[in-house]
């Protein structure tokens, strides 16, 4: 049974995803517990996988017993083990949060679809990460995306429109990726990633290959929300239910980033993407623009979730930039940021969800300093996560910044260094805007005497424990992972570097 562990996380999610509608035929509450069980089991197995990959090196799992390149292969190596562990852990924490949040935000007859879709989404995400087959990746991409469209549409009144917009862009992205796969297949005659890598090694680059790489970059770039392809993201994040935003923001774009890292750095190879076709340069420039654009747009927002959405565009840019500079430190920084940003954004979206549940809104201009009294823990979690976003040690953000800075200096990309560092200042601008609102009395209100009415007692309106627990776990993780970063980098990420860096 344990020899099957590489395939288990996606399979567990798939099973739960299809079992939930059957089980919930009679017992509605069961869907939550099934989802919780599935995420915890998947988290366990992905950690187990990670330790396997670290001790034994890369493991290949053959579906149906067919030998690759004929059959579909799952590849477990430190990189895929790391990313699955990250997303399953975050999913596990967010699912705890979903219990109450979904009960309050989503109408009862949609609870079962919610959990089923989350499971399918996670199955897609895990599948994308584990698979070693180009077409299989497409299928999982679509499984994940289609469930995500459904999940987004569970949100507020505008959510179907946001979901529809995402659907159009996402499907075009998937289509471009599929076309890219087609061209790769024309060139190499294989769909197995490892096989393609070996075949390409002996092939001189040809126009179809260039077309294939371009199409794949566009397709996956849409999923990752790289700068000019990010249009779907702000609306989708804003209008989705809190739990969905919190699960989509840390996982959704990261799997796009992972797919880009996997396909371009491991399969096409570093030499091809730097010397033959400037994929890496394009990625890094777009990411740099995206960082600045996302940060500036985030400053202009008046709604926390929307602000976080634009901030996500910027943060995904960090990952793209780290990959694009093509240096070991940059790559490590990008991978570490997948973990770090996942934790930060999940935490921030959970807090935004807490605000929505308790205050009925998450608009910055309507927050006031009563929050520090009424929701002390949520506010504190927000502050910790905001500090992490700014990159204050000892939270995780500092270390992302550190490795990314090392990466850019290593390759003498001074402009990118400036972009990364300036962006952390821009982060400070828009996060401190919220923190000021949350902690300090608004002068206008005080003057008008509005603020003087009875201040709520400490923690009086704090959300219930099952909402608070995941928020605090993530906030704590931001600091703990900060202290563990060297360990993570040394034991995991150093082994996950592609050849040729």
């Amino acid at each position, binding site marked *: 049974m344990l020899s099957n562990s590489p395939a288990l996380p996606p399979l567990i999610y798939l099973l739960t995803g299809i079992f939930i509608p059957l089980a919930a035929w009679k017992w509605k509450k069961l869907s939550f517990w099934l989802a919780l069980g599935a995420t915890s089991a998947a988290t366990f197995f992905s950690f187990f996988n990670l330790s396997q990959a670290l001790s034994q090196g890369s493991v290949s799992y053959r579906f149906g017993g067919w030998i690759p390149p004929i059959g579909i292969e799952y590849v477990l190596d430190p990189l895929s083990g790391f990313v699955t562990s990250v997303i399953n852990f975050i999913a596990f924490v967010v699912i705890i949060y979903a219990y109450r949040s979904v009960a309050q935000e989503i109408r009862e007859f949609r609870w079962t679809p919610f959990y089923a879709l989350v499971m399918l989404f996670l199955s897609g995400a895990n599948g994308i990460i584990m698979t070693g087959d180009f077409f299989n990746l497409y299928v999982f991409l*679509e499984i994940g995306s289609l469930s995500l469209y459904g999940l987004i*549409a569970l949100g507020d009144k505008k959510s179907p*429109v946001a979901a*529809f917009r995402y659907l159009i862009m996402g*499907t*075009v992205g998937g289509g471009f990726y599929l076309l890219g796969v087609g061209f790769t297949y024309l060139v190499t005659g294989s769909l197995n990633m490892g096989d393609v890598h070996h075949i390409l090694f002996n092939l001189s680059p040809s126009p179809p290959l260039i077309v294939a790489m371009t199409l794949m970059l566009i397709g996956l770039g849409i999923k990752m929300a790289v700068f000019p392809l990010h249009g779907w993201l702000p609306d989708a994040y804003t209008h989705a239910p809190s739990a969905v935003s919190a699960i989509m923001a840390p996982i959704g774009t990261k799997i796009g980033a992972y797919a880009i890292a996997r396909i371009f750095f491991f399969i096409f190879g570093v030499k091809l993407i730097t010397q033959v076709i400037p994929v890496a340069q394009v990625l890094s420039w777009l990411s740099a623009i995206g960082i600045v654009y996302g940060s500036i747009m985030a400053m202009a927002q008046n709604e926390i979730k929307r602000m976080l959405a634009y901030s996500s565009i910027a943060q995904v840019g960090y990952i793209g930039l780290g990959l694009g500079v093509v240096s070991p430190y940059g790559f490590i920084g990008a991978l570490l940021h997948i973990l770090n940003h996942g934790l930060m954004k999940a935490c921030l979206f959970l807090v935004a969800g807490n605000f929505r549940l308790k205050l009925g809104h998450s608009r910055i201009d309507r927050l006031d300093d009563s929050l520090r009294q009424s929701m002390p823990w949520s506010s504190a979690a927000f502050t910790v996560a905001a500090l992490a976003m700014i990159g204050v040690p000892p939270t995780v953000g500092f270390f992302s910044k550190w490795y990314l800075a090392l990466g850019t200096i290593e390759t003498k990309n001074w402009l990118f260094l400036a972009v990364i560092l300036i962006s952390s200042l821009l982060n400070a601008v828009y996060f401190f805007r919220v923190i000021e609102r949350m902690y300090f009395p608004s002068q206008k209100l005080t003057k008008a005497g509005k603020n003087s009415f009875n201040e709520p007692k400490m923690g009086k309106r704090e959300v219930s424990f099952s909402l608070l627990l995941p928020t605090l776990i993530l906030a704590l993780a931001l600091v703990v992972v900060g202290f563990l970063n060297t360990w993570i980098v040394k034991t995991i990420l150093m082994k996950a570097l592609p050849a040729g860096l």
Partner: protein
Amino acid sequence: MIEFFLGHYAYWFVLILLVIGLYGMIIKHNLVKKVIGLSIFQVAIILFFIASSTKWEATVPVLANHHEKIQAAAYINPLPHTLMLTAIVVGVATSGVSFALLILTYRRYKTLNETELLKRMSEEDAE
């Protein structure tokens, strides 16, 4: 040069279809027409794969009797076909989800025209 174009005529048709699909998605204001554009786009990709698998003087890859010796050149490549079977299913699912979303949208805003929809959404914001 002309040979190159004529020799790949199927791909040019695919390209035209792709562009039509993208055009529909970008230009059309009616959301249903966008979905139609999306479907055309997906069909173009499917056709691309199918076109890539064809050969002259080859037949469907069904073996009447698996004891005879297999001549790979005599059959067209079955792999793209099976892949496209999956892609078709994905396409169906996408259309299903998109229509469901459109129905939800229509119920809430009573329109499927993009400009009108945006107008109503911003009116709602203003309230």
